[in-house]
Structure formats: structure tokens, C-alpha cells
């Protein structure tokens, strides 16, 4: 592994960004590597953007990823994935993005239009090495709750080639931290999502 290996989780308050950071850092530690996890969010308790920066290496790296240096972007929300990608993605970045929007209050109020997913995809593709847009809505319906989206996305991430973390540690971290069958099922479903 070339270190640091840098993962960004982009989402909205309440989507489980912070839990993603906890799961991936726990798995990192189990594998004998050193994680550093930084979360950026504003004063909003609900509805604001949340970005989690995860650095993996044999020593401690800065808790914020430098411009263009993300290896992976896990987008829990399409616009948030793009917002993060514009700053942190580069030609080596792989983006895995849930296509289920969480419209901000200016959209739900009818004042602003949410952009087309096709345009977001095109924009991401022009920046990143590879983009996976995942149709997560039917899967979440099947699983019974959007609350397991984060475990599903970690499952997708675990299926990537050249990924430094062993899938079994991620699975174990989900079991240890969430103690939820539904999350484990979501993780397993996620591992099949990039096929």
C-alpha cells in the first residue's frame, strides 16, 4: 500500500457519516495499521453537509485530506459527493455514490431545483478515475430502512480491488460497533453492488 490511503465519506447530517468513520477506523486498527479520522460539519444538528476524512497508514497523517488526494469517495448523497469531489478528487479517485438524494431545505421549499443525477454523474466522471453510481433506493426498500445505507456503501467499498483493508475486518467492525443483523445484510448486499 502506498500511504496514506485516503477515504472520504460525503453525506448529510443524520446519514451515518460518523459511524462510517468509526467502522473503517476500527477495521484499520484490527489490521495493524494506524487510522486518523476527521469529521467536518457546521453548527447544524440536522440537514447540513458532513464530510468524514479517513487516513490510513503506518504512521499518523493529517486529519484533513489534501486537495485532489482522495483515493476513495463514498458518497452517501449525490450533490454532497460532487461537492467533495470538486475539492478532494483527482485522476486516481474512485467514487462510489448512492443515487438517492437528500434534498436540502431550499429544494423541499420549492425555491431551488435539485440537479439531474445524470449531470452529477457526468461531472464526477470528468474528475475521477472511475465512478460507480449505485441505485440504492430499491435495495434500501428491500432491506427495510435507509439507516443501513452506510453499511451498504462500506460493503461496496470492500469489494474494490487494491483496497488496503481486509473485508473480514470491515465486516467484524460492523458487527462489533452496530450489533445489527440488518447492517450486516446491507454490508453483504453492498459487496455485490459493483458487479
Amino acid at each position, binding site marked *: 500500500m502506498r500511504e496514506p490511503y485516503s477515504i472520504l465519506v460525503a453525506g448529510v447530517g443524520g446519514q451515518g457519516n460518523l459511524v462510517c468513520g468509526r467502522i473503517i477506523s476500527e477495521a484499520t486498527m484490527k489490521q495493524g495499521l494506524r487510522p486518523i479520522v476527521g469529521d*467536518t460539519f457546521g453548527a447544524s444538528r440536522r440537514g447540513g453537509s458532513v464530510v468524514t476524512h479517513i487516513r490510513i497508514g503506518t504512521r499518523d497523517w493529517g486529519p484533513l485530506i489534501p486537495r485532489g488526494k482522495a483515493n476513495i469517495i463514498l458518497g452517501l448523497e449525490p450533490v454532497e459527493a460532487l461537492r467533495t469531489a470538486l475539492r478532494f478528487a483527482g485522476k486516481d479517485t474512485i467514487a462510489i455514490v448512492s443515487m438517492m438524494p437528500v434534498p436540502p431545505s431550499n429544494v423541499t421549499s420549492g425555491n*431551488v431545483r435539485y440537479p439531474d443525477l445524470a449531470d452529477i454523474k457526468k461531472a464526477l466522471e470528468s474528475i475521477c478515475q472511475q465512478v460507480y453510481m449505485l441505485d440504492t433506493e430499491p435495495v434500501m426498500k428491500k432491506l427495510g430502512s435507509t439507516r443501513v445505507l452506510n453499511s451498504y456503501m462500506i460493503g461496496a467499498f470492500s469489494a474494490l480491488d487494491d483496497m488496503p483493508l481486509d473485508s473480514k475486518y470491515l465486516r467484524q467492525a460492523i458487527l462489533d460497533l452496530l450489533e445489527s443483523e440488518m447492517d450486516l445484510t446491507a454490508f453483504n448486499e453492498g459487496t455485490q453492488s459493483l458487479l
Partner: protein
Amino acid sequence: MNKPKRNTIMSGNEAIARGALEAGIGFCASYPGTPSTEIAMNLFEVAVDQGIHVEWSTNEKVAMEVTAAASWAGVPALCSMKSLGLNVASDFLLNLNLSGSGKGGLVIVVCDDPKGHSSSNEQDSRFYAKAAKIPLLEPSNHQDAKDITKEAFRISRKYEVPVLVRSTTRLSHSRGLVQVGNVSSRTRKTIGLHEKLYNIPSPHIRHRELLEKMERVAEEYEESGFNQVKSTERAKLLVISSGISSLYSQEAIQAFESENISHMNLGTTNPLPRKRIKQLLEESERVLFVEENDPFLEEAIRSLSVELKKAPEFFGKMTGHIPSYGEMNTDVVLDALLKLLGKDRKRIEEQARNFEDLLIERPLTFCAGCTHRNFYWSIRTVKKRLGGKLIVSGDIGCYSLGVFYDEAMDTMHAMGSGIGIGSGLGKLQRFGFDSKVVSVAGDSTFFHACMPGLINARHKNADLTFAILDNATTAMTGYQVHPGSKIQDENLQRVQIEKLVRAIDPDFFAIGDATDIKSMISLLYSTVQKNGLKVLLLNSVCRLEEVKRKPGFIGAIPVIIDQGLCRREKCMICAADFGCPALVWDSNTNYPVVLAHVCVQCGACIAVCPHNAILEGE
């Protein structure tokens, strides 16, 4: 935190709490404030097991006073707060430094918030260490956060001075690996207070004694392991950093491996290890400072360099190589190094510009059912009725979001400033000021800092309405208990806002219901038109806290939209103006829709529709 594994993932704040436990603290006092809150929260979790007294004090000054008392009596004490909290406590700190902190040991942790992610300014609190002439330590990673806190207690006990530990948001709130030690099992018994816990009649003698102590601390700091140097032969450049900036500096230096850059990271930043720094400066031609927020080290080391035969060239915030505002990160250091090394960075295209129209904003908003929205909606309505002649002086808390709610809040500064500013505005009629004045504060803020302002308004007969939005919890920082909370632990006694306010004897006092918009509008409208000091205690609800207390709780008033009465896109008041996340616009059907999974069934929106199209459902 009871029995941690040897290597544990901890946030900077957890590590600081752990360090205090390993140092054997018996006492902790704090006032909640992001990004410092989790330090005391972690200690609350182990308070019973470890036999520690932990409290949320009324404000930071009180917190520092109670912890000083413990330390004087021989009980090691930790006092944690956010940046702005130290402003409140500083009056006491600049007396305590002279009296000394006694035998127990007193460590003050202050968490600064560069860029003001959760703060109304981005102050650098390190200058308080300089003003108070007390030792200052800055942890630079998570392991350091624990170890330096422990070290701070050692210094404090040895020299009987309060020691300041300074963290910033990115260390306090990020997580990393920490190797933990044992929690001290020392028994803590009080001792007699030492003599002269006051500084008169000769504070200058106490000042001299403090300066002597600091000389000895400085000697000791020369050898401190918390100052790390990684020097390279024939280095072109020396980077001097402190705090979390050390990780950014390391990462940036690594990107220029072939360039021979040395790095000194300082953990003991007041007093400075002058000899060690001077020695390194003698060997350097150019120096770059990387620190959050102000040029604290930069100014101190620049001034120290006059003692050198030949001073190096200095770069940093004072030369514009590092921005003087905002948060530090690796890119900032990379850019500065590139400039100094005369290189071009392969710039990432300015991608943002091409896709700007896709990046819709995500504004901050009140939660579904939050009664603060009801309050500001009422204020907005009353303001319209008064032809705009209404000024709202606001305060610090969730209700600060009023500044984004159609600018329903006009001013917002320090804790308690709303009523103080109102007290001033309320005396301006003779100069032609003709707006009604409403000052706003929450319940925890009321206890923290509003009493002097309110008493001043009463005493001076200021003409204003003081609205207290009482949701009975410190909602913004995670529902900490305060003196007015309805539910108190058995050893805590509730203090009622109503009784306090009545004792101040306002010209008019009423209790209102913030869940009921109609009654609140008429109460506010009639009250602001009365003369003199009016106080409204508005019973409010934090829906998040409610759900935390009663899992699955939901209100009793579900709502439906009567599509026959709805004026659709000709009106849109409910979705576009009221702005509840549960009441949204469906642009396919052009009707408002209630999102069942977001709605808390508070029924507030019924009053908002001018066409009575929002009805109580079943």
C-alpha cells in the same frame, strides 16, 4: 473508557479526559461548548466508578473558580471549555495566576475553533497564557493529547500554577490511536488551604514570584520531550509548528523529500524553550511558521531572534505565506513551501467553476417541530404588523439560527449579549430611536450570563421585551443539564427561571406557549407595545431531546393538506417561508406534502396557512 485496550481509537477530547484520569483527578467542572464538550462528557461517564466530582457549572468563570477551590484543597482538578468560554473565565484567571493553584494541581483545557465551525469568532486563546504568565502546552496528535494533559498536571502540582492546555477543533474532534496507561488509583484527601489566597496589598510581589516560577518552568521546558526536532543536514528551510499543524507540516514536508527541510514541533509554547530554539535558528537560513490561529509562535520567536548574531529570514502569517485567518491544513503548508522553494504546483484545475450550478447550497435549518421556528415565525409576523419597526438582539444557542431565518435576528455576539444590547437599545428613545426591542436568550444562556444584563435593564428602566426560549436543556451541545432543567439528578436542586425573573420585578411578566403560534403572535404583539421592561418566558420544546428521553415519541397532532383549499404555487407560504423540513413542496403535483417520516406531529403549521388548508388529521 473503563478498561480500555492498550491501543484505543480516541478523539483528541477523549484522550485529554483519559490523560486527566491517569493523572489522578478528583474534580472536573466545565460549561458545554463545541469543540470542548466531550472532555467533561467522558469524565461524567466514569464519575461514579472513579469517585470523581464532575459538574456542568453555570458558566466557565464559575467552573474555573470551583476547580481552583478543589486544587487549593489538594484535589487535582480539570477545567475544560471552548475558546469563548475562556473570555468569561479570564477575569478570575488573571487573579488566580498570582495566588497560585495550590497543591492539588489545576489544568485548564481550552479548545479553539479556527474558522468558527461552531463558534461566533476564531480567537486564539493562547494569548491568555501569555497575559496570565502561566505555562501553556499544545498537544500535536492524539497520543500527545493524553500525555500532555498528564504532564500539565505534573507541572501544575510542582509549581503550584494553573496550566493551560490548548487544543483546536481538528484535534479535539478527530480520532486516532492512543496507547493508554493506568488510571491513577491515588486516594484523594483534602488538605488545609494555604495562606494568602488573595493578592493584595502587593500584587506586584505576587507578580514577581510568578515570573520566578515561570523562569524555572522555562528551564525545565528546555529538556521537554514534547518539543521534537527532525533536522536534516544542510537544511534549506526550518518549519516550526505547534498543535495539529504538526501533522499537516509533516505531510507537506514529506512531499518535498529531496529538499532538505527540517521540522521543529513545539509542545511547550509558553514559556518557550528559548535556548533550544535559538540554537536551531543559528543553523537555519529560512524559517516557516505553521500554527493555528494567530502568529503566536511567530511573534515570540521573531522577537527572540534579536538575541541572535544573525537572524534567519522568517515566513508565516506575518509575511502572507500562510493565511492569517481560517483553518490550517496540509494544502496551506504545501502552498507555502512551494512558494518558498520557488516551484510551481501542478495545479488541480479549478473544477468547481465548471460545475457551480450543480452545487446547490445546503442551508442550516431548525429541526422539524422545533419551537424556535414558531418563535421566529411569530416575530416575523409581529414585525410586519409594526411596519418593520422591531429589532431583535439575539444570543448564543440553537436559536442563533434565527439569523438565517429571514434575518429574524439582528444581532448575535457573546453569551448574554442579547439582553445587554437590548438594555442599551431600550434607552435610545430620547435620541429618536423608534423601533420596538426584543432580546432573546435560551434557558442555559439565561443562567450563564443574562442575569447582570437583565438586572441592568430593570434598574435603568430600559424599554424592551426579553423573550426567554425555555426548552429546559442545553440543546445546542447535546442536552446537558443546567440549573433550570426540569429533570435533575438527586443531588442537584432545580433553580426556576420564573422565580428569578419575578424577583427582578419586571413591569410585565407572562408565560407563553411556544408550541402555539397563534397565541404567541398575540402575546408578542401586545407585549412589545407595552412600556418598560417586559419579560416573556416561552415554554419551548427541543424535539431531539424529547425523542432522546422518550424513544419513538411523536406528538398528537398529525396534519393533512386540504387540496381543495390550497392555493398551490400562488401561495407556497407553508413550504417556501415557514421552512419546516417535514412540510415540503412537490414540484410534480404543485402541492405541499407532509413527510410522514420527518413530521413530529406538533401541529404548528396549521396556524401558518392563511387559507386554512392545513388541517388536523387523524
